[in-house]
């Protein structure tokens, strides 16, 4: 019986078995980790087929990363096996059928269990003897599990298929990301716009608040994240609408134009000339100031001058009656008072007119700011509408009625009467300024689809102009009053319509209306955001209406 035996005699076996065990485990758990990673990638790929999460390339990347992580985890798990001596002993007993010899030897050596001294030696010798007989290569074969590799192969094939086969929702992924990127840009733009409004000295606090409120609401919505294109457009459109409403409420353009015209009456009077010049320059603030100065100069004016000034003011009052009755009344009152020699009343009336003009000037500043902000929002909206759709919409150029080359450039809606490209104008293509809307300004350039050639752009929301349809129960169209005096300003519509305006209606042939509407609609389909499912619907609709069918 060997008596100088110790637990150290077992350690070489533990080391040898540990290496073999880790190698064997590596061959088992490495592929299994790889398998788990690849299957996770397949699951991601499957989900990405139904939900707009990842592009095909990203699916491939995710699959590879997951496979790498799985493989790494499997390898780490395998290499961590058998680092603890107790665990090694238990594994050896279990794997090599050593009947708890190793654990018992270890515990006896550590004093965890007791046995007589000689018994410990016998047990240890028996353990060493049993360890010597172990054939770890037979017990722990380095074999590959074919089933595991079959699963890996299958997962690789599925993942490759997921990368190669086009994903129907990939376009939606790209679109959502493009929209998100544009939304981020718009957030920055809106913040800059807010700063601009806050820094504008021409605006009162109340006006600033009024202008900032719709911007803040739009920002809040945009910052919520994960917005769809429609939601982002809705947020921007809502803010833009409010700002345009605000701009409309504070629009002083007509007043300025009328004032410039009416101010000519003051040029006949030496004292009224500065005011006339300011009015001609359409500078309401300067005009108000000049009127104030005029009021203070009244007592020093000769009687003839005062009478002449009174007549000029009265005339101005009459001319401005249609655009600003309050101001007109004040100017007329000043004129009458001067003609009657009541200097005090004339001064008061002129000062009241000055205050009114200052008010109009202030409102005009707010209106311009609102208009500017609305235009910025419109541009942002256009960008959101175009985001992710570049080159996606099928081209219908040359195949649709009313397209250039088919009906001629002069047939395009919004184009000039003489066949010139459409004038974008100051309100070109902006929503809320469709023809017929009160206060919309000039008819020209407000028709839909101003044409990119003319420097304008197509509105993202298709809003066809209201036109009467000859021979049908059409829609009554209220044309601006200026159409009566200057029909050419109302575009080709009036030019080509056999009407004498006595009933303030216009009649357009069906073919022409169809061509124009269809052309605009197809142009919008090409260039603007229209939900995918709705595009075919729109095309089918116009095809069914085609008079040439």
């Amino acid at each position, binding site marked *: 019986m060997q008596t100088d035996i110790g637990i150290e005699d077992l350690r070489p076996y533990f080391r040898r078995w540990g290496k073999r065990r880790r190698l064997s485990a590596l061959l088992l758990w490495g592929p299994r980790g790889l398998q788990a990673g690849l299957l996770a990638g397949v699951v991601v790929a499957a989900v990405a087929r139904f939900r707009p999460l990842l592009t095909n390339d990203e699916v491939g990347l995710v699959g590879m990363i997951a496979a790498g992580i799985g493989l790494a985890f499997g390898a780490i798990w395998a290499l961590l096996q058998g680092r603890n001596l107790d665990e090694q002993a238990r594994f050896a007993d279990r794997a090599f059928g050593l009947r*708890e010899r190793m654990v018992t030897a270890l515990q006896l050596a550590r004093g965890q269990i007791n046995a*007589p001294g000689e018994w410990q030696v016998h047990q240890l010798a028996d353990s060493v003897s049993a360890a010597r007989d172990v054939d770890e290569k037979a017990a722990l074969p380095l074999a590959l599990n074919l089933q595991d590799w079959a699963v890996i192969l299958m997962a690789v094939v599925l993942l490759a298929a997921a990368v190669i086969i086009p994903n129907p929702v990939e376009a939606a992924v790209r679109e959502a990301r493009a929209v998100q990127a544009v939304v981020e840009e718009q957030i920055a733009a809106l913040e800059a716009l807010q700063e601009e409004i806050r820094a504008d000295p021409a605006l009162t606090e109340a006006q600033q608040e009024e202008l900032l409120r719709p911007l803040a609401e739009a920002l809040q919505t945009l910052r919520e994240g994960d917005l769809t294109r429609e939601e982002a457009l809705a947020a921007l459109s809502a803010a833009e609408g409010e700002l345009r409403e605000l701009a409309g409420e504070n629009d002083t353009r007509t007043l300025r134009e009328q004032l410039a015209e009416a101010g000519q009456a003051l040029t006949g009077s030496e004292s009224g000339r500065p005011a006339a010049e300011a009015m001609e320059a359409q500078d309401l603030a300067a005009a108000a100031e000049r009127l104030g100065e005029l009021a203070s100069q009244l007592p020093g004016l000769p009687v003839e001058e005062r009478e002449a000034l009174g007549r000029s003011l009265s005339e101005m009052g009459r001319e401005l009656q249609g655009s600003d009755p309050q101001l007109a009344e004040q100017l007329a009152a000043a004129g009458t008072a001067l003609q009657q020699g009541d200097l005090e009343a004339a001064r008061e009336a002129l000062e009241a007119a000055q205050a009114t003009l200052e008010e109009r000037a202030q409102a005009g500043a707010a209106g311009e700011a609102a208009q500017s902000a609305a235009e910025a929002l419109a541009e942002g909206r256009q960008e959101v509408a175009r985001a992710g759709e570049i080159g996606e919409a099928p081209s219908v150029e040359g195949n649709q009625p009313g397209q250039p080359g088919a009906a001629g450039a002069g047939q395009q809606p919004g184009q000039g009467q003489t066949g010139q490209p459409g004038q974008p104008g100051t309100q070109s293509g902006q929503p809320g300024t469709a023809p017929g809307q009160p206060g919309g300004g000039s008819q020209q350039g407000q028709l839909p689809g101003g044409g990119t050639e003319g420097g304008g752009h197509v509105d993202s929301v298709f809003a066809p102009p209201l036109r009467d349809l000859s021979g049908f129960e059409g829609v009554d169209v209220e044309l601006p009053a200026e159409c009566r005096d200057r029909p050419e300003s109302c575009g080709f519509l009036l030019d080509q319509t056999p009407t004498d305006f006595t009933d303030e209606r216009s009649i357009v042939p069906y073919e022409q209306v169809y061509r124009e509407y269809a052309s605009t609609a197809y142009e919008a389909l090409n260039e603007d955001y229209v939900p995918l499912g709705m595009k075919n619907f729109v095309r089918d609709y116009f095809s069914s209406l085609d008079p040439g069918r």
Partner: protein
Amino acid sequence: MIDQPQLSVADFRQTTGAIEAEVGKMIVGQRDVIRMVLLAILAGGHALLEGVPGLGKTMLIRTLSQVLELDFSRIQFTPDLMPADITGTEIMEEQGGGRRGFRFQPGPIFANLILADEINRATPKTQSAMLEAMQEMTITVANETYPLPRPFFVLATQNPLEMEGTYPLPEAQLDRFLFKVDVRFPSAEELNEILRRTTGDETPDPGPAASGAQILAMQQLARQVPVATHVADYISRLVVATHPGSSPSALVNRAVRYGSSPRGAQALVLGAKISALLDGRYNASFEDVAAVARPALRHRLILNFEAQANQISPDQIIDDLLAVLSRD
């Protein structure tokens, strides 16, 4: 140089091998029964052999007594057997000079190896006379306690079929048996051999293979076998798992009314130790525990009505437990 133990493991194996060989001369087959009875003897415990009549239970025990060179008593349990018939009694006798006195006349229990044949035929009162002897290895008669000779083993038999006029052993007494050994019917080949041996003119004559002193030394050696902590823990968990409620075995939860007592765990440890020695090892293993689990636990599981109605046996439950209980 370390002194060799007085009895080496090799000696142990050699002696047990010799005992089994000698018993095998008389008993055909039934190797598991012989092994388990021997295990019980070497563990210093008692064994209950259950089987239908004619399977050689009584012959096995009688042969063992011959092979082990032990004093042997056979007590045939019957309904009219009285406790004093087992333990002995005070008898009056002439002591000379005209004086009379009482003298204790030892009963048949005063032997090394007791065959309690058909133990379930005696009344509970008589059966209980065995309790002190089996546990304390003493007998108390008329306030006088008498030690029983060592080694002392009770090997009892009972017939599971004839229940008429029997008194099933109470749980307390069943628990005192280290093992309950089921004696199965022999196979056709074994039956042929039995016929050859018992109907010819040759009478096998088993010789002695061990003495009482050797048995005691072997018992002492067996107790030195170390049991690793996780094996001991496994035994504890196994015994706890025989109790319904929190057992990992659904069968236990469904079929067992009451599980094993701590004596079951002791039986498992001792049985595993001897099993290891018989296998030539110096430590007990899970396999050793599994080898003795059935005889150590089957009589300690009290089954409920559902189990009895569905003929679920304790062995099935033990097998299920061994299968579901983790060895880690």
